[in-house]
């Protein structure tokens, strides 16, 4: 079936035009070349998805972010054909699911995917336990077995003791836990989540996000998560796709999107994000002043340190895996002992190493514990030394952000003062019109 290393799910050139009878095959020119407004006015059809393509890897959390009307909810529904797309391909584990017959589709929904909905979609006439077992029930699993699994899953999401209640008796947050349990119990590879936490109040939402991260740590599902909330996207997403008017504008990691927004729309979106919570130490790294192999002789090491003007060096093995530091004194002692290499002079405990995907904010407490200004080693997942980090750059980045925040506050205070002074036109003139501000209605579910 699927090739090794191929994405779990691939979307290729996906189109959805409501009110348009798909001709199958290639996208007709009159659709492909028309703007959304023209289509609505001329043909009375609504363009919801325009040439959407992306890949989702096994085990990652792929977030699709956009405001209402951006097509994100349509997109997630087309992935399991709750809405039939007009054109394109959706390839899951090597199969194009748009070619599936009705029967294959039902089977696909049972085995491969399960979905969590913004408005929960629980069955009001059934108990919490029976709701959690729904996915297994439609697979015709024997009752005792499916209720057993549902019970365990409810326990996993923290709903033990609520099994016999009706969903209507539960709060919104708890109902969504039932929705989550129902999706997990079905034991599908891919979890589709359509704004699952948007209807919940902020505290509960944060709880549920934490819960999802915790669950994902030992479930390792492939998650496709829809949201209109950038903070949520950055918190959960391995990769994020930003949608607007049915088009995917940018796909990347949270960091990539913050650092290099594809256009003004995205830039406007990310303006207020606290970068240090997302940006990793990778962006603050320097090249090591001096990097030595463990097979280096003490004499060479001392000479190199002298040449570079440093008192210590980073030591790696032949494959660049980071081993530790060697100080000038250490190398000198090794030379006196008559060691052939500096391998025995390496010290590891003195300086901690940082994984390259640590956010700047989480790196701060680590670097503050340092007693001197010495650089820390930054390594990737394989332990390869990718750079070094000066404590001062971390502190500097944090200070810079705080300063920016103050600047923004002062600037808006100045604007406010100006508007109070009756200088209305100047304010209106440089601000965006309300409709063009993408953050408008961000909290509207």
């Amino acid at each position, binding site marked *: 079936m699927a090739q090794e290393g191929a994405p779990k799910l691939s979307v290729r050139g996906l189109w959805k035009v409501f009110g348009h009878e798909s001709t199958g095959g290639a996208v007709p020119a009159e659709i492909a070349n028309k703007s959304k407004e023209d289509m609505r006015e001329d043909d009375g059809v609504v363009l919801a998805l325009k040439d959407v393509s992306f890949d989702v890897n096994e085990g990652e959390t792929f977030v699709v972010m956009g405001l209402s009307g951006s097509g994100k909810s349509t997109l997630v*529904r087309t992935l*399991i054909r*709750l809405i039939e797309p007009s054109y394109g391909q959706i390839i899951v584990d090597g199969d194009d699911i748009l070619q599936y017959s009705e029967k294959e589709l*039902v*089977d*696909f*929904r*049972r*085995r491969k*995917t*399960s*979905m969590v*909905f913004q*408005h*929960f*979609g*629980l*069955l*009001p*006439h059934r108990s919490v336990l029976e709701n959690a077992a*729904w*996915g297994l*029930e*439609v*697979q015709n699993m024997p009752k005792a077995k499916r209720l057993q699994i549902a019970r365990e899953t409810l326990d996993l999401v923290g709903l033990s003791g609520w099994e016999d209640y009706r969903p*209507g008796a539960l709060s919104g947050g708890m109902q969504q836990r039932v*929705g989550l349990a*129902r999706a997990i119990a*079905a034991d599908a590879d891919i979890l*589709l989540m359509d704004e699952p936490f948007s209807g919940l109040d902020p505290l509960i939402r944060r709880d549920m996000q934490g819960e999802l991260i915790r669950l994902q740590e030992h479930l390792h599902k492939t998650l496709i998560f829809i949201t209109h909330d950038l903070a949520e996207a950055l918190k959960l997403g391995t990769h994020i796709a930003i949608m607007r008017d049915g088009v995917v504008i940018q796909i990347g990691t949270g960091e990539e999107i913050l650092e290099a927004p594809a256009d003004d729309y995205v830039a406007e979106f990310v303006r207020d994000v606290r970068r240090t919570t997302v940006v990793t130490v990778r962006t603050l790294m320097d090249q090591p002043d001096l990097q030595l192999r463990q097979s280096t002789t003490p004499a060479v090491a001392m000479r190199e340190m002298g040449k570079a003007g440093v008192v210590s060096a980073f030591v790696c093995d032949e494959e660049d895996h980071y081993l530790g530091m060697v100080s000038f004194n250490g190398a000198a002692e090794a030379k006196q002992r008559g060691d052939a290499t500096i391998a025995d002079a390496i010290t590891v405990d003195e300086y901690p190493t940082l994984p390259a995907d640590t956010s700047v904010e989480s790196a701060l407490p680590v670097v503050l514990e340092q007693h001197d200004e010495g650089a820390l080693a930054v390594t990737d997942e394989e332990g390869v030394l990718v750079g070094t980090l000066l404590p001062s750059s971390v502190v500097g980045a944090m200070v810079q952000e705080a300063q920016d925040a103050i600047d923004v506050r002062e600037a808006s205070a100045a604007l406010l003062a100006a508007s109070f002074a009756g200088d209305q036109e100047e304010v209106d003139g440089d601000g965006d019109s309300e409709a063009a501000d993408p953050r408008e209605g961000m909290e509207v579910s």
Partner: protein
Amino acid sequence: MKGSLSDSTKRVMDIKNRKWLIAGGVVGLFLLASKLLQAVELTLPRVPLADGVDVAIEWATINLAPFFDGIKLVVIKLLVAITAFFDWVPWIVWVVAVGGAAFRWLGIRTAVFFLAGLLTIVSVGLWDHAMSTIALVSTSMVLILVTGIPIGVLASRSDRFESALRPVLDAMQTMPSFVYLIPVIFLLGSGKVPAVLATMIYATPPAIRLTNLALRQVSPEIKEAARSFGATPFQMLFKVELPLAVATIMAGVNQSLMMAISMVVIASLIGAGGLGNDVLFAMSRVRVGDGFEAGLAILVLAIVVDRSTQALGQRASKETRTE
């Protein structure tokens, strides 16, 4: 500024005046035409509608006899079984059972009212006829449910079927029942079987309409969620849609039941028997008292049945409430 304002006001006035002019002209034309055509005798050739129906019924009587015999057989079997059951259970058991159930689920006042009503029927000697009527209504209801609900389900699936069905249902409900009693006698003879069919014609539409409506009202979000887990259309219908629609369907069943009971007097014209017969008998002999007794018995049955099925519907709606 001022000039343009008065211009636009003038234009509005013009449009208003023109409308009145046109309306006056149309009325004038209408009257004038009537005046001119007073003396002229206008006739259209007769469309042989009545003859056509006669021929069709005659044809059906001869050629579809096996079909109608089949229907007759099924209805008779069902009717005989149900009638036998109602005859077999002694009145005292019925009265105690109905009174007890009412006390348990509907409260003491309703129970007392039910008991008083049923005992009155027994004491005026109409119990047997009442049971015969109930057996006929029950038979009709069984047939109404097994035909009406599936038709309602189909109507909820297809907009085209629904719009084709609507005029048929309208006709079934508004056509005076005497009009179809005559052809029913032609096709099935007189007696209880045509009475059951006539009752069905009159009383099935609410069951169909409300089943259709109930299924269309099931929350699309719940349906979508259920479907996303790979539920088949069959599972959707029986595990999601019908359970969530049952309260509204029960309201339709209740309406059908009331209409079926209201049909008993008319159906007795073609030999339905039961309490309807007593009403007819009293009418034909101008015996006001007897007529009142029989009418009261029908009323008691209707109230007992209505309150009981309504209570069932309310229990169902409590079960499926979303909030």
